[in-house]
């Protein structure tokens, strides 16, 4: 039984009307309506992109986009989920794709067809500046692409809506991978640590600890805790 305090509102799932309690997300409203979701539902926490949904509100011309798990229903919403988008993804070996613009264009030549119409940005449920990162990709500003696309949940809505037929989210993914592998500086400290492990520097002590009793383990733990310093250092504002 529903609690008395709940107010019901009408929504339309693929054109069919349902009465659902006010305040539910689109995802829960669909479940309340009786849908057992297999496609169109994933993490339920706004990061996986499975539940991207297009909707119009009655009486308005705008076409809206939102993640079903994050968007609260409103009266007279007309909903359609888009659980799969046939997007283009180039196949490449990251080991041989160096970070430069010619490789981006080689893998995604259609990038230059961008009309700068901004439909992609307007279609992004994460409200990313998609057109901004596509423009940055065109001028091979990799850092800008990383910055503007980092929160992309790969739902594919930009690819579904792009009149120039780009798959912007896959282009951004290529560039983020190039940037992470080739542009971010290597860490000499990590290399030192890997060598220490290869040389077996810690092996003897860990072998000993594997047989240590609880008292010794706790003693060592206290010793390490006493010298632990600050939990977090501040990330620098500038880029590395």
């Amino acid at each position, binding site marked *: 039984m529903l609690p008395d305090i709940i107010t019901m509102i009408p929504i339309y799932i693929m054109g069919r009307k349902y009465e659902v309690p006010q305040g539910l997300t689109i995802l*829960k409203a669909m479940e*309340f309506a009786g849908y057992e979701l297999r496609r169109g539902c*994933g993490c339920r926490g706004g990061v*996986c992109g499975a539940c991207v949904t297009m909707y119009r509100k009655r009486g308005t011309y705008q076409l809206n986009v939102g993640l079903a798990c994050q968007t*609260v229903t409103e009266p007279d919403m007309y909903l359609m989920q888009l659980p799969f988008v046939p997007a283009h993804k180039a196949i490449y070996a990251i080991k041989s794709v160096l970070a430069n613009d010619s490789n981006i264009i080689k893998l995604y030549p259609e990038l230059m067809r961008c009309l700068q119409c901004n439909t992609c940005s307007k279609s992004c449920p994460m409200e990313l500046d998609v057109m901004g990162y596509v423009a940055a990709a065109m001028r091979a500003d990799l850092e800008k692409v990383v910055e503007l696309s980092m929160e992309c949940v790969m739902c594919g809505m930009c690819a579904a809506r792009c009149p120039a037929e780009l798959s912007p989210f896959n282009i951004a993914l290529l560039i983020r991978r190039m940037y*992470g592998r080739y542009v971010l*500086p290597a860490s000499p400290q990590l290399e030192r640590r890997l060598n220490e492990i290869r040389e077996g520097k810690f092996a003897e002590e860990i072998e000993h*600890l*594997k047989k240590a009793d609880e008292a010794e383990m706790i003693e060592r733990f206290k010793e390490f805790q006493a010298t632990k310093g600050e939990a*977090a250092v501040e990330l620098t504002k500038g880029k590395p």
Partner: protein
Amino acid sequence: MGQSFPLLNLAEKALLLETYHPDFRLAEKREIPVGPNKGGLAPKELVDLLESPSRLVPEAIDLTEVGYKTDVLIIGSGGAGVTAALTARETGAEVLLATKLRLGDSNTIMAEGGIAAATLPDDSPVIHYVDTMVGGRGKNTPELVDALVNDAPFIVEWLTSLGVNFDRLPDGSYYAHMPAGHSRRRSHSVKDLTGLEFMRVLCDEVRNRQIDVLEFSPAVELLLDDQGQCAGAVLFDFDTEQYFPVEAKATILATGGMGRLHPQGFPTSNHYGATADGLIMAYRAGAPLLYIDFVQYHPTGVAWPEQMLGLLVSEAVRAQGAQVVSADGEIFVDRLETRDALSAAIIRECGERGKGVLTPTGMVGIWLDTPLIDLMGGEGTFMRRFAGIHGRFKKYGIDPIHEPILIYPTQHYQNGGIRVNINGETDIPNLYAAGEVAGGVHGHNRLGANSLVDIFVFGRRSGTHAAQKVGGVEIGKWSLEHVRAYNTSLMEAAIASEISSPMLLPDYRYERALSTVQHTKGR
């Protein structure tokens, strides 16, 4: 600001856990009536599934029509599954990756905080080892922890080489923070989107390597041959609703945890598909479970707004300075206690002490004082580190930069799982388990940031080992005989279950969609 609360000593912590931690409520556990762990305890929600017959009626499926044949079948496509697939392929095996929902759908994608690895100069695998053992209450399998801490820095290198954009300091060194229970800064992050970045890159790599992926095809039972070796699995096609067998020389279970069973009625931070399928299949096939009655409740699940109930607020938020505060504005526990102790303290504060905050839907929560982050770290710190968290709250008119948020413990992780060795091998020949579905490495309580490293370490180890082994594997005549035998043992124990398993997906239809009704029962 600048206030602190003394860390609990070990005796105080033990008493707090025994009195308030959900794991110690014996009434919430039941004995497993049949199988390798017969007589052992497990959360009653899991026992309900373990003592139900298979959803697959062995007589109703034609096993002569083999759907696929492969060297290595990987079930599940979170961090452990995709890593096992990539590694097995790299080692030269033919690979089939089957997954219940889409490629990459998993708890991994939701991980905000970071991946633990002793990379910084003041850290070492020795310290990581000790922290992990103490965090696990000394119950961890030492060999597994040894593998975990020594492989961890190599995982950071591997992910970087694949193009993961780890947070860095100006000199190129890795930025790392110190989650609760760790003695050094060693959690490597990608803002608050660490798992999302990992999965985007790894799934892209799976596609680049053109590995065969079967989406919307959950496994429902394993196949065993006449020698008792695992010989693959029966998958269920979610679209056509047909069952079909896949024959494999090695099978790697990477199906994740049990959050969507909602142990003890708790909300969960877990993915929609976290329904313990791997545990059920492996157990029916005869694989023992380890520490399966130990469940992790993350202290900072969202209590309000209702739409976000149970979702996680990363532990990194506390590492960055946010305090946990009662309705009276008092600090009652150190913000960097381990997850088990902090959850117990919050449950005590909201329950017995009556210092919780009542939400409009009848939940009780406690304050997480997020504005401290900018007050201590300078304006802009919260946005630089936690833009994702900010965005999710902002949709509901809550600004965590300037106002505290309400939290309550949420089911987060299954500490135990299928017993494995350092190669990810279970007790069943040719059956492997990696990631949350496996047990032992975390003992009774996992430390933050140790699961993101676990999935890669044991995903790689099981993928490599399986691929190397398959050349010498001869599969005999396989069947679902063990499923029949298990069903019979249930009948002999006079157990009448109204459900079947594995569950595959939780049922949230109709009134169950109103989670306040569902998840607050049993508190």
